Every structure is written in C-alpha cells, then in structure tokens.
C-alpha cells in the first residue's frame, strides 16, 4: 500500500493551493455579491491550465489521472464554490464525454479549444420531466439526411451562459426506452439553439445554471457522440466519472471549514476562556476531523481504483453520497461553532453552508446514490 501522491501531483497541488489563496480567495466576497466571476480571473485560470485537466496532452491538456484531478479539486474546493463549479462542470461532465467517447475527428475539433478554456463545456441531460429519472427524456432527435433535428427543452444546465460545447442527450427512438437515447455534441451557434432563463439560486454564486431550448436545431450527423442508442449509458458513465471529482471538491470545502472553525474556537472567548475549552466544541471539531479524514481516503481510494480501470460504480456512488452528506454536516457544525458570525454574510461560513446544499442534489441525489449502492449490493449477493 502506498498512501503518497505522486511527486508531480504534489507539485501541481501546491501551485493550485497558492493560486487559490492569492488570486481567488481575495475575490470570493466580490464574486458572491456580484454573482459573477471576473473575466480576468477566468483568464488567469485558463493560463494556469485549469481548463485542461481531463484532456489528453496530445490535445493540449494535462491528461491528469483521476488521482491528479482529485488532488487539484481538493485545493479548488477551498474557495468560493461558484468558481470551483465552473471548473468542475467543465473538466468533469462538460468534457469527459468528449474525451472518453468521441472519435478522432471530434477530438481534434473540440479538445484543443476546450483544453485552453477558449471553448467551455457543459452537460445537458436534465429536463422538466426527467430529473432523477433521466430515462424519461422528451427531447427528440430525428434524422433528416446528413443531420439530426433536435426539439425539446433542457433545464438547470450549469455553465450554459458561458459554454460553447454541450454534451446533449436526446431520444432518437422513443420505442426503445433508455436504449433509444443518443448523445450529441452541440455547439452554441448551431441553428435552433437558444438559451432560456438563467436561474436564481440559493448558492453557487458566480456559477450559472440556465435553461436551453432546441427548436428544429440542426446537428450534423458527425456530431453523434459514441453510438446511436448509447446515450443513456453514456450519460451514466459521464456522471459516474464525475463523482470522485465532486467529492474531492467537497473535501476541500470541508477542510477549509475545519481550519476556520478550529482557529475561531481557539480565539473566541466566552465565560473567560476560549470556546475551544468547552468539551462540546472539542467534540464537534473532532467529529469534523474524523469525517474529513475518512472522506479524504475514500476519495483518493476511489480515484486510484478508477485509474486502475476497476469497476467503481458502487464505490463512486458511496463516495458521492458520503462526500456531499459530510460537507453538509460539517457546514452545519461550522455555522454552529461560529455562532452569530456563522450566519452573517460578511463572513464566508454561511456561504459554504448554502453552497454545500446543492451537492446532495446534483449529479445524482443522495437518494439515487443509495439506490445505486443497493442495486450493486443485490447483484453481489444474488449472483
């Protein structure tokens, strides 16, 4: 057993930590209030290479292992989650499908520009009638000559306002159920592509999530991603691949909250001594620390398994479930330890508390993760 990250990964982690501390954190309050990540910060993030994490080196990216990506996401999790989400959605669900499932021509067309961040990626699965039940899609894709005509609506699509490339799931054969779904690479300037309302959200400020409308949108047949009829399986694969990354972001945020909470507890005095001296506060902090340590090693273990090419359906679901639930528990304790300060928007704690909440919902709700885990258990025990 080896519990050390490779040297190169450690070096990258250090650089990203410095970048987050010096370039992102000082802007966090501004991003939160203006609900906007400044272009200059996005440009600097691109220059650092933060948009090319998943894309192979031959196409201009970093081609990082899952372990490497998780190490970087852990650092990115230590600042405003809205910023982190732009990167997470792009490097994760927004580009992984094209990296893993595309043909050479598609790779050459899309990956180099996505690696530099010139083209930002998004993933468009969810529809008004198809949330947890992603197989219930109603967006249709009808083949007409050398192109497909797409009609339908997508909702809650992260990065939609800034993305150029969308991985879109649509129904090509309604008679076949989940096996009648196909994935497409859609560009924002395709005829018939329209962006709808940008949602107001509880948190993740700076990251934007919007509706999409496809009205007789024309998608050339060479933009089918993978095989026709494989879209549902593709979507599940892309989501499964993203789970470790999401958990790593949760891990970073948890670590940030623990750091803040310990320091605050040592400084804040009530009843003539630091609140840290109260046993209940010590217990809160201990519980937080144990959960973080557990999350850290589950994250890196699943990442490592992924890199070994092992089947991680169950473990990735466990990790996504655990990471998001732990993040919420820790955010709640952090608010409690900070007392009033934890509730006041001038301090970052309440922001993390709000930002934590989405992690139990998107990329598969906690309930759905439990369903996946149980289905795998049943398989194992009824073989």
């Amino acid at each position, binding site marked *: 057993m080896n519990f050390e990250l490779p*040297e*190169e990964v450690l*070096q*990258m982690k250090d*650089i*990203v930590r*410095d*970048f987050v501390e010096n370039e992102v954190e000082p802007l966090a309050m501004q991003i939160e209030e203006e609900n906007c990540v400044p272009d200059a910060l996005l440009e*600097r993030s691109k*220059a*650092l*290479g*933060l948009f*090319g*994490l998943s894309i192979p*080196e031959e196409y201009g990216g*970093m081609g990082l292992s899952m372990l490497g990506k998780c190490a*970087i996401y852990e650092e990115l999790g230590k600042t405003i989650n809205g910023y982190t989400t732009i990167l997470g959605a792009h490097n994760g669900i927004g580009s992984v499908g094209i990296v893993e499932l595309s043909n050479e021509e598609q790779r050459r067309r899309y990956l180099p520009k996505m690696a530099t961040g010139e083209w930002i990626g998004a993933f468009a699965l969810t529809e008004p009638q198809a949330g947890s039940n992603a197989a219930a899609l109603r967006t249709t894709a009808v083949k007409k000559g050398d192109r497909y005509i797409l009609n339908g609506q997508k909702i809650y699509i992260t990065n939609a306002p800034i993305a150029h490339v969308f991985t879109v799931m649509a129904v090509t054969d309604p008679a076949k159920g989940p096996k009648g779904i196909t994935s497409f690479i859609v560009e924002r300037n395709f005829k018939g592509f329209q962006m709808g309302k940008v949602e107001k959200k509880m948190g993740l400020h700076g990251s934007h999530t919007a509706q999409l409308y496809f009205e007789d949108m024309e998608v050339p047949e060479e933009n089918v991603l993978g095989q026709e009829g494989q879209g549902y399986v593709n979507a599940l694969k892309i989501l499964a691949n993203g789970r470790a990354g999401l958990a790593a972001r949760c891990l970073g945020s948890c670590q940030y909250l623990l750091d803040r909470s310990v320091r605050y507890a040592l400084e804040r005095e009530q009843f003539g001594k630091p609140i840290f001296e109260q046993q209940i506060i010590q217990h809160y902090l201990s519980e937080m620390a144990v959960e973080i340590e557990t999350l850290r090693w589950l994250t890196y273990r699943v990442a490592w398994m992924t890199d070994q090419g092992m089947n991680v359906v169950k473990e990735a679901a466990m990790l996504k479930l655990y990471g998001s639930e732990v993040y919420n528990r820790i955010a709640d304790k952090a608010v409690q330890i900070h007392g009033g300060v934890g509730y006041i928007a001038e301090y970052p704690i309440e922001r993390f508390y709000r930002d934590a909440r989405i992690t139990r919902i998107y990329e598969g709700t906690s309930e759905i993760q439990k369903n996946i885990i149980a289905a795998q258990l049943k398989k194992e025990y009824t073989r």
Partner: protein
Amino acid sequence: MNILVCLKQTFDTEERIVIENGKIKEDGVKFVINPYDEYAVEEAIRLRDDLGGQVTVITVGPERAEEALRTALAMGADEAILADDPALFGDEYTAAKVLAAIVKQREFDLIIAGNQAVDDGSGQVAVRLAEELGIPHVSTLTKLEVNGNQVVAHRDAEGDEEIVEASLPLLVTAQQGLNEPRYPSLIGIRKANKKPLTKVTLADLGLSLEDIEARTEITETFLPAPKTAGQILSGDLADQVKELVSALKTKDKVVG
C-alpha cells in the same frame, strides 16, 4: 541571449521562525523561491521570449533547493544547476566564489539575481559575484530594457529613480516592482520534470576548501525581543518633549 539567474530558496515570508538549540528550525516549513529572485526569473523568461536564447537558473543550497529550481523551470527557465555539495556552503563570500566558478564554466550575456534574500537580507552575494567576474552591475532594478549590447536600467535609489546605461555582459539585481511573476502552469510543471538539472560538487568546480572558506562566523542566533507595550506621555507639552528626547537617548538608544 544567454541569461543566468541566481536564485535562493528561502522560508515562505509567512512562516514563523522558531529557534531550537541555537538553530532555526526547518521542519514542516514551507520553502519558496526568494521573492526578489522570482522577479529575476520572470524578467529572464520575458527577455528570452522577446530576444531568444536560453535561461539557466543556478542555486547554491541544500538538496531541498531543487524544488525551487523545478519551480523556476516550470515558470519557463530552460536549464538548472544545483550546487548542493555541503562543502560549497559558507557565507556570502563563499556563495559568490562558488557562483563565480559555476558562471565561469559557461557563456552568458546577462546575469540577473534578486536584490537580496528575505532570510539573511545581506544583499551581498550578487554584487560580490559581479566583482568576482570583473563585470559591471546595476542593483535594485524596477525596469530593464535591452537593445543589442546596450542596457538601460531603471533603479530604485532609495525611493528616487536612477536611470543607468550599461553594456553587456552585465549583472543586475531585481527590486520589487520590476514585474509580476507568473504562476508556473500545470503543464509547465510536467515539462519542468523533463528539463535538465545538473548537480555540481566542489571537485566539479575545481575549487578547494581554502578558496571558498567563509570569512564570517555566526556566533549566536536569537529572535528579536518581543514587542512590549508602548508608553503614552502625558502632562505639560514642554515636559512631554523633554521626556521624549531623554527616552529616545537612553532607552533603546534611538538617538546617540
């Protein structure tokens, strides 16, 4: 244009200094490229990108200093030299002698170093190196222009700006404000691990211990006395002035 950059790995400026058994404790400390040297690296990379050529970063220091060199390579330097043979360690005199021996083994047009290292703060090594090499130097630069063989250097002269013209070969030292150093890119880190890094020893440099023996000795290392509470003067203004003057003379001997 061949540019050599002298850099030192120092404590991160935010680290707390702890002294144990008369020595500064290094365990668990974060080390960085000396901030002034970071300006030097950045300036060298920009000049190379404009004018072509090669940037070589050089450090005299322990094995851990390789990390600082790798960071400079990740920022864009082409090659690195690490003098990590403990026989090469001493004081500013030693460092300048060792650097001179390294520099004499290669071709160069320009040497850039930091104005001073934030740890010892002596500001001697680069200037001594210029003396050893018998080349001119301009220190505390805030702006550098190179035109063919001619250099125009703007230097921070205790708050004023002095503009100095010089010709290559030349040694300059970087002051804060010279530029804004870049972050090494992630791909830069990967590339850096494949760039050449040469380690040199006393023997490689043809030096003997006597040549480079330190000329100074550290007799004691201690932390500054902790800050004590201030004193607020009161009473008649004339008395306050008298009291202040006498305090400045007697306590801490601020004025002689």
